[in-house]
């Protein structure tokens, strides 16, 4: 009589414990691998960059998003962030392909690794690997600093708006004067 009671109670207890632990925790299922930390995936040296070009007051994102529910539905934003027009592969991508739904203060790589905004180059480099290679050695992007010493790096976002990366045409500076006028008639 006692053994049958145990046989019934044990799975029930397990089920209760199991269901209790399944709600609200980010512990992944035992079968999925743990996402590597950013520096493990790409052990490049630290690139000292200026602060990311945030709009004033927008960061940290969690200030607003901590208390908001997550809406994973792919849509056009109408309440907030309406200034962001996505021209970065809009058919293939939308916000949560780069932004992390559960922790807005970080970006998320394809592997699940979280990267801070100060290392957003890791995110861009996933698809733009050739640019990343060039950028790391200083060949891609605006070059300032010292040619033999410390090069000053910029984040991708400092030149390329991540939501609409293509450069807008600039107004050129004035053309040179014709030779006769250049040195006075």
């Amino acid at each position: 009589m006692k053994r049958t009671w145990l046989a019934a109670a044990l799975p029930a207890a397990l089920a209760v414990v199991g269901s209790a632990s399944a709600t609200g925790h980010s512990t992944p299922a035992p079968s999925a691998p743990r996402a590597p930390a950013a520096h493990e995936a790409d052990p490049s040296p630290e690139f000292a960059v200026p602060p990311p070009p945030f709009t004033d007051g927008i960061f940290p994102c969690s200030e607003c998003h901590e208390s908001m529910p997550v809406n994973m539905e792919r849509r056009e934003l109408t309440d907030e962030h309406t200034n962001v027009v996505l021209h970065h592969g809009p058919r293939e991508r939308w916000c949560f392909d780069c932004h992390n739904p559960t922790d807005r203060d970080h970006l998320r790589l394809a592997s699940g690794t979280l990267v801070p905004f100060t290392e957003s180059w890791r995110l861009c480099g996933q698809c733009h690997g050739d640019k990343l290679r060039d950028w790391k050695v200083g060949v891609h992007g605006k070059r300032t600093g010292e040619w033999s010493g410390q090069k000053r790096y910029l984040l991708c976002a400092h030149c390329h708006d991540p939501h609409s990366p293509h450069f807008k045409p600039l107004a050129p500076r004035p053309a040179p004067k014709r030779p006769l006028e250049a040195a006075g008639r």
Partner: protein
Amino acid sequence: MPWRRIHLFYRFFEGSLRLWLSGDRWYWLWIAFLALCIGTGAAGYAEQLRGGLGVTHMRDPVSWGFYIGNFTFLVGIAAAAVVLVIPAYIYHWKPIKEIVILGELLAVSAIVMALLFVAVDIGRPDRSWHLMPFIGRLNFPTSLLAWDVLVLNIYGALNFVIVTHIVYRAFTGREYSKRFALPLILFSIPAAVSIHTVTAFVYNGLPARPFWNSAILAPRFLASAFCSGPAIILVMLQLLRRYTSVEIKMEAIWKIAELMAYAMFINLFLFGAEVFREFYSGTHHLLFTEYLFEGIDGHNTLVPYAWGSVFCSVTAFLLFLTPKTRQHPVTLNLGLLLIYSGVYIEKGVALVIPGFTPSVLGEIYEYSPSRVELQVAAGVFGVGFLVFTLMLKVAVPIMTGRFSLEKSPARAGRRAPGPAPEPEVAASGAA
């Protein structure tokens, strides 16, 4: 102290001064005209010194212009004296020998003008001393301009020494010293070829300028020099024949005209060879010749000059080739004028400007000389012609015997310091 020598020289100078200050109305009119040219030139140059070379129309794309074009042409004139030297001294050709001196005087005047054109072209004439060997820092032998500086000065000095020696000896009633003069005269032949070859190499050696960077440039320079230089001499000889007692046979003149015809043939042949290469191969190098003869995109300032030059050269060639037209005074002189004009354009603007147009980056800046450039050029030509005139004014009377030591008596009551000279024993000469 060789007082006698100094005294003799002073007599020469004195006499020359007198000759320079005496002449008929035409002479003074000519001097006045030259003075006017020189004055205009001086005023123009002062303006250039004040305002910088920007008062010319040269600019970065076309950084050489009228001045260097004239320089190149005048080096050719200077080299042409050799046309007369070779037959005279190698073959002892009597009819020409007497007029070789005149060719050398022209060479000296042309060198003076050529060097002046360089002097007015450089941006910092106060730094000319940088060009002197040892004192400055002459980039010899790498820079062709360094070569040019040397050979032009040497050639000028050489001709000056030769002609002064001969003329001064004649003044003192003596034959020129063969031992002294002949080596110099012989040396002046390759020297004449060298000045124009070096000047050609100045252009030739630049890979940046395809219009000039052709092996044929040096032979073309020499051919065009030999057909244009004698033109002035022939005009001068006819004038001397007419207005002085210097005896010049027409055969000599015709002979020189004939030589010029052959030189012009070579010149035209080489030009034709160049034109064939450019137009037949039709590479990008054609652009410069195209600009010269056809214009590009409506830029065609040089086209009339280019074709005019060809017309003049061909016509002159035909006139000199045919004995009848060569010997008739009207067609002879017409031919001389045509040949001079044709080569003046060919070696002047039609050489320098197309080398720069289009520029190395494809820009077309149409250059034409400014007022200041024309003024200064007039001044330089004025100086050159004045030098030529003054030298002729002394040399011709010496050649005709009207001006000599025995005819220039010592001054009354005054003597050179030192022992009293013998009564003029001009014939046997001094120590």
